[in-house]
């Protein structure tokens, strides 16, 4: 009961942006209908949906093998690979896109390198669908990688051993025993990638791909048209509900926890044997394109911009601020994800389903929409909190909670309810059970979720610009300050610091094995 109340209260906070959109649209319904009825709207939805589908498919194709290699095999240096594979998530998509453009673009660094020896004058244009797809795939696949990896680590090896013992080939075992157990994690990750692609503005604007979100931004930036923007944002919410419905269908009703008594033991690592080199090559390639290439461009830029002086004091202070708010957001998200996941897994029903689905609202929307929604409510209902650190953390919670819920849920599905029931029968209160039994057992999933929130929040920009206390500068706002003047080069140093401070925090979250 308490749980249901907590869940509903959380969901209510999460749908604030939705309430704001409805209020804004209701203000002048005709103008809203006008915008939505525009013939371009349908075309933009189709373009964005196509991009989301392509990027999600590719992200699964990258994230899943990486997760399996780092979690279940004897891949050399697997912990380092795991951290490296998750890191691309901290690269803001507009920085990543710009790095790609300046490396591989028609007049980029690669062309300069090829010009002398081979007389290459112009490389093929990577802007448009291909560029947006490439960049979004490379910087979102960790959303699949992290939850799948934590799910793999939580699997009970006995089922696989039984399958192998019955004479099934390793491939068939993977397909019919392991894969079905990974579906919840893959599904949760895929939804996150798809929604990320739908709400992203940075990559599509730099790659000049005309998407739905770009139109929303244009309405705000160019015409101060709140109603039109809100109407389009509502379509994003509708798309989100469709996606979540599809995901819940795919998730199905598998039992994922062990049903036999006893506890599971850690899985045996699979020796890669002669596959070791190809596996390393694969990891190297993915990290090369998603981490080394953009980081290399950033290093190149920062060397160039060193002619101007870097304000190290300011950058370090901004780094601490970034750690502070994204750390708080990760903690808060982990704390809120546990009850929501418990509600959705242990007490399935229409209330818990709606609660969970609507909590994705903030994540499905562009940051500026959520930020303006909170401006609207905070200035009216809670002026004392407006532009305080607390409100900023709350904004991050509204924006990024779904990142934590998916993995927390996947983690919980591997915990047998029998254990909890046993604890209850021995006299523990529900709250005690949750604290002492459920939470620790689903920890792997919760940690993965917190890592996702941390990595995503640390680069958040639109809400930070509007909602942070005045004078509170994060690395993301530093990058923005620098790039705003038109010099992407000057954003390089804070971007590298962003990578540098995220890596150890990530090691803490991932490296505990």
């Amino acid at each position: 009961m308490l749980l249901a109340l907590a869940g509903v209260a959380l969901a209510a906070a999460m749908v604030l942006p939705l309430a704001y959109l409805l209020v804004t649209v209701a203000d002048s319904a005709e103008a809203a209908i006008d915008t939505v009825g525009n013939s371009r709207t349908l075309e933009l939805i189709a373009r964005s949906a196509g991009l989301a589908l392509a990027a999600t498919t590719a992200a699964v194709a990258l994230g899943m093998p990486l997760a399996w290699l780092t979690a279940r095999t004897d891949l050399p240096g697997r912990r380092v690979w795991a951290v490296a594979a998750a890191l691309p998530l901290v690269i803001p998509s507009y920085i990543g896109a710009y790095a790609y453009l300046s490396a591989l673009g028609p007049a980029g660094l690669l062309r300069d390198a090829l010009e002398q020896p081979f007389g290459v004058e112009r490389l093929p244009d990577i802007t448009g669908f291909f560029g947006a797809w490439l960049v979004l795939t490379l910087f979102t696949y960790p959303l699949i990688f992290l939850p799948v990896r934590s799910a793999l680590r939580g699997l009970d090896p006995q089922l696989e051993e039984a399958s192998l013992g019955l004479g099934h080939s390793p491939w068939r075992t993977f397909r019919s025993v392991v894969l079905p157990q990974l579906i919840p994690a893959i599904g949760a990750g895929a939804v996150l990638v798809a929604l990320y692609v739908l709400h992203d503005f940075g990559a599509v604007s730099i790659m000049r791909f005309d998407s739905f979100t770009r139109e929303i931004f244009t309405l705000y930036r160019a015409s101060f048209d709140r109603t039109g923007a809100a109407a389009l944002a509502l379509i994003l919410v509708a798309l989100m509900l469709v996606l979540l419905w599809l995901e819940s269908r795919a998730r199905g009703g598998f039992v994922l926890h062990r049903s036999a008594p006893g506890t599971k033991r850690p899985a045996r690592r699979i020796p890669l044997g002669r596959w070791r080199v190809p596996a390393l090559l694969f990891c190297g390639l993915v990290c090369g394109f998603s981490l080394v290439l953009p980081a290399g461009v950033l290093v190149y830029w920062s060397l160039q911009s060193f002619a101007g002086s870097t304000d190290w004091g300011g950058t370090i202070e901004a780094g601490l601020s970034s750690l502070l708010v994204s750390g708080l957001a990760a903690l808060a998200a982990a704390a809120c994800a546990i009850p929501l996941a418990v509600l959705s897994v242990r007490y399935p029903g229409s209330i818990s389903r709606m609660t969970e689905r609507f909590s994705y609202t903030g994540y499905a929307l562009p940051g500026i929409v959520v930020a303006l929604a909170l401006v609207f409510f905070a200035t009216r209902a809670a002026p004392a909190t407006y532009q305080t650190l607390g409100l900023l953390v709350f904004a991050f919670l509204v924006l990024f909670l779904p990142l934590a819920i998916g993995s927390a849920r996947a983690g919980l599905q591997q915990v047998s309810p029998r254990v909890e029931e046993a604890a209850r029968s021995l006299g523990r209160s529900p709250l005690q059970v949750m604290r002492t039994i459920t939470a620790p057992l689903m920890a792997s999933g919760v940690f993965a979720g917190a890592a996702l929130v941390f990595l995503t929040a640390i680069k958040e920009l639109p809400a930070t610009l509007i909602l942070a206390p005045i004078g509170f500068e994060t690395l993301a706002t530093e990058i923005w300050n620098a790039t705003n003047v038109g010099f992407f080069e000057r954003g390089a140093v804070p971007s590298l610091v962003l990578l540098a401070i995220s890596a150890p925090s990530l090691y803490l979250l991932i490296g505990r094995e």
Partner: protein
Amino acid sequence: MRILRLAAFALLALVALALGACGGDDGDDGTITVYSGREEELVAPLFERFEEETATELEVRYGDTAELAATLIEEGENSPADVFFSQDAGALGALENEELLAELDDETPERIAEPYRSQDGRWVGTSGRARVVAYNSEKLSESDLPDSILDFNDPKWKGRIGWAPTNGSFQAFVTAMRLTEGEEATEEWLRGIAANDPVVFDDNEAIRDAIASGEIDVGFINHYYVAQAIEEEGKDYPVRVYHPRGGDVGSLINVAGAGIVAAGDNTEGAAEFIEFLLADSSQRYFSEETKEYPLVEGIPADPAVVPLERIEQPPLELGELDDLEGTLELLQRSGAL
């Protein structure tokens, strides 16, 4: 779990520190809250000088001009802001339409020539930028260029033009063209340019650099990008600017400007701040740092740029440049976007 607890503890300590650092500056102690759509790097030194000279503390929120305007609209009567310092006139016009700007002192607007301020006296331009045709001075001279920007859809310019249809300044220029020349003529012009296979760029700097390298011959940009490059690279820099002679929209002057937020609780301070932006020294600062045009009468422009008086300007109210939606539709319809 232990790591979580440790992390939680460390974070709580940091929060306490942050709160300690932020504490003590609430309440109405005469500080002025500025929402600045102009970039920190440019205006921060100016703001510091204001704080020193007046012993008043400024609290500045930097952001994208349009996003700050949207924020001010959502905040409405509850806005903590006293001043809005905007990158362009369109955002100020939008706030004026929402009745969020307070009237300025009678004398303040009058120091600025008519076209560069609001008709209702609710915002003033603080510095100006001219739309120009930049050209490669090794290949072309001014006499090769047509009187009107409208004539660049002549086929003889095929493959020689650079433009940036996604750029805000360019879009403001197209909005101005819609107002002065009408929708049809603007669409025809856009289609004509598009038919000339222009090279598409992201921003003004890229166009300028491509003209310098000879990739293209002419481009539509703002005047100060070229003035800045000439100052850095020297007189041999092969790009010059041309203000079309015809007095049409091709020589549009747009402004950055400021207005008092009506909801703010320090209107007096806000007025003082805007006065400061119009002071001779501030006007010279804009001129020297950015090569923008000073707008207060009597302050000369940088010697490297064509004086404002010599530029024939289109008849236009800058605050009306807030309907970019129609412009975007037009850009899309004509295949420019």
